[in-house]
């Protein structure tokens, strides 16, 4: 038997730890609803995206659909969000950003994906999802953490996010800073999607890029770290009215739908990439509205 003890309390506080609890066995699931459906669906959804993202990231081609300025009516700047910003010398001139030269056979996506991926992996919503679906810790509310049969099917030890590597989840806000930059870049891509070889215009791809940027901003600005930085860290809202307005009028309403935007933006990134891929392959033709 051990006891719960206050840091400053000289006397042990008499709560028995590890005593007999009684009640039904810990590993027995008494829930009669379909509690396993949600972790199954979300787990499959995440696995599906990881599979698609891996294929896209290693693909290394057909990530850009464009043509030379003034030559045709085709779009001149449809760049897959998986490859934006395109930083290496092998990138098409129209979308090349940067200082990195030839990296050989390495896909340009692999150089940048750590940032959006890190943002989502450390996101509070996604943490809930994969802790439930993959860690089974817990798989669902009031269903015991799954562990080895030695410990009666219940995980014998749990340290949460107190130790390496899960303590690294605390760097989420740094990934958020990069996520803001990436949201800005994807917004630039959406603006560039109005460019066609023959001048400004709008095609189906333009709409897809705009929606992609909107969803990315909705997800990024609804982030819990953003909510804290914008105003949540204050003790007194009344002392910072501007931060309070941002917190209460923009970030908190978006945060209330963080789960929705997490999924919509994830799915739409894949859709945007697939659209660019199919247009670049020539499989489909980008319908032009004007």
């Amino acid at each position: 038997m051990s006891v719960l003890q206050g840091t400053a309390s000289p006397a042990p506080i008499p709560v028995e730890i590890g005593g007999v609890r009684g009640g039904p066995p810990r590993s027995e699931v008494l829930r009669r609803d379909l509690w396993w459906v949600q972790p199954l669906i979300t787990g499959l959804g995440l696995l599906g995206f990881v599979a698609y993202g891996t294929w896209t990231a290693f693909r290394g081609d057909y990530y850009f659909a464009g043509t030379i300025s003034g030559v045709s009516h085709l779009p001149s700047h449809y760049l897959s969000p998986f490859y934006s910003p395109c930083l290496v010398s092998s990138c098409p001139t129209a979308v090349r950003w940067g200082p990195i030269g030839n990296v050989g056979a390495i896909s340009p996506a692999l150089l940048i994906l750590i940032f959006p991926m890190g943002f989502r992996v450390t996101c509070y919503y996604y943490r809930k999802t994969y802790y439930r679906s993959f860690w089974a810790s817990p798989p669902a509310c009031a269903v015991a953490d799954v562990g080895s049969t030695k410990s009666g099917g219940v995980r014998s030890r749990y340290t949460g996010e107190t130790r390496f590597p899960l303590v690294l989840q605390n760097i989420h806000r740094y990934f958020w800073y990069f996520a803001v930059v990436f949201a800005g870049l994807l917004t630039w891509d959406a603006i560039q999607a109005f460019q066609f070889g023959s001048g400004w215009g709008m095609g189906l791809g333009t709409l897809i890029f705009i929606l992609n940027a909107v969803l990315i901003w909705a997800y990024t600005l609804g982030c819990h770290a953003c909510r804290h930085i914008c105003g949540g860290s204050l003790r007194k809202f009344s002392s910072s009215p501007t931060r309070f307005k941002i917190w209460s009028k923009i970030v908190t309403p978006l945060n209330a739908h963080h789960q929705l935007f997490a999924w919509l933006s994830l799915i739409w990134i894949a859709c945007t990439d697939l659209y660019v891929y199919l247009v670049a392959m020539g499989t489909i033709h980008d319908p032009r509205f004007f």
Partner: protein
Amino acid sequence: MAIDTAAPASAPETSTTDGRELRMRLWRGDASGGEFVEYRVPAQEGEVVLDVVHRIQATEAPDLAVRWNCKAGKCGSCSAEINGRPRLMCMTRMSALPTEEPITVSPMRAFPVMRDLVTDVSYNYEVAKLIPNFTPGPKPPEGYRMQQVDVERGQEFRKCIECFLCQNVCHVIRDHEENKEHYAGPRFFVRLAELEMHPLDTLDRRAYVRERMGIGYCNITKCCTEVCPEDIHITDNAIIPLKERVVDSRYDPVAWLGRKILSRPDPMSASEAAKHTGAARAAERAAKTKES
């Protein structure tokens, strides 16, 4: 004026039976063991689970132990697990439960069973003594003033009825008894968030929240929010803001550099914050009494 205090010979029948029979499986036993026992009672319109449990107690099992008080979802006494889901018995309508199979009612699993559906929740009261108290600064001549916008923020947290369903469903202690030694649980993160967001409070509990209250154990799977009968957004509005405050004080090198450059004070140590707990003050009083 005469007041009739005599109880009626039999309770008036306010509900009507509809001919259906309910099968209820109630946990019977104590810390040494027990089992589910099935009871069959006629279904009545408009009942909640607590009504049916009371009927079983009145008709078939007079020794059945069940804790209850207000029957209105405000006292937080009748917490239990109905078909495996942590809920208040008085707020769970029978009409919302499937009746093809027996309805299971069991005690809260995170706490030791005293008898039948009654658990010993004293762990929570011991943790409450470890929360550093509200510590306002010196009273200004015009008295303490708070703006409405600052008052409103904490109102959500004060809705808590201490039913301890969130503590019960939290897998950190539900499935891992040993963590009770160093983990406060969702109800007390709500309390700590309320204090940390109080416009008049001056204490810095961030190191204490990490080291003594064990916020790092929470993996934000949101079960506490799901079961809260008062609809407090425990995870989004209390736990995650506390985690972010801990990041400010512990894991953010930029914030650390900012404190150094701007000569801001370092976060208060956990041991310093611990001096403001009820447990520490009780120990202090006890020492003084002993001296005198």
